[in-house]
């Protein structure tokens, strides 16, 4: 595995993580006291990140491994989070909400919407590529 690719993943992951941190600060969560704020923050980063990865997978198909590493597992991977979703579902189990089952449902819906937004990213990238070629 080329050190250059790992370096690109590290850099993209660092930038993606800072961007996620900024979203978290904007929503003012990470207190594990308000599951709804956690849900808003994870929805923003996860759906946007899934869309970005779909776009990157199509646009970057013929690009270098360094480019793919930076934008794929780096930027999109570092921006999104699954542990943030676990914080919501586990928080619901720990009794932080009287309607915990709704948070489980919301997280499950977010997982499904993530697949959909990934697909939307691939579709937009395909159309962009076709327009650029014609």
């Amino acid at each position, binding site marked *: 595995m080329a050190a250059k690719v790992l370096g690109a993943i590290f850099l993209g992951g660092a930038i993606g*993580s*800072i961007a996620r941190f900024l979203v978290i600060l904007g929503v003012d969560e990470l207190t594990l006291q308000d599951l709804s704020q956690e849900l808003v923050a994870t929805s923003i980063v996860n759906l946007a990140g899934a869309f970005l990865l779909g776009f990157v997978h199509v646009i970057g198909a013929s690009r270098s491994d360094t480019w793919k590493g930076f934008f794929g597992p780096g930027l999109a991977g570092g921006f999104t989070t699954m542990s*943030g979703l*676990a*914080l919501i579902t586990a928080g619901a189990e720990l009794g932080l909400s009287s309607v915990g089952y709704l948070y489980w449902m919301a997280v499950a819906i977010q997982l499904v919407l993530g697949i959909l937004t990934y697909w939307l990213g691939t579709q937009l990238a395909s159309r962009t590529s076709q327009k650029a070629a014609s």
Partner: protein
Amino acid sequence: MEILISFAAVALLGGAGSVLRHIAGFWSGALPWGILFVNSIASFVVGLAISSGEYEIALVVGLAGGLSTFSTFAAQSYEYLKNEQRFRAIANLVLNLALPALSLLTAVIWL
């Protein structure tokens, strides 16, 4: 000053977590076990951090956030659906919903 240190910790640990996740991603079979593994480990780290109350931003936002991924889950599930491997897509969704939550709860109960 404190916020700058937090940003630096998030960047360093987020970058390191992303590299580890990429390496773990090569462990794949009927399901993307490597990604499931890092998502669960990252959630365990979150459980430890919030239980101990130490280095929460660095560990939760930096290390665990960089180590775990939602976008790769979405891409892999989409590929399963595209290839008509519906059972794998559903299993991937259910396991990514349950295992990270279980890992986090285990860490909280353990501490």
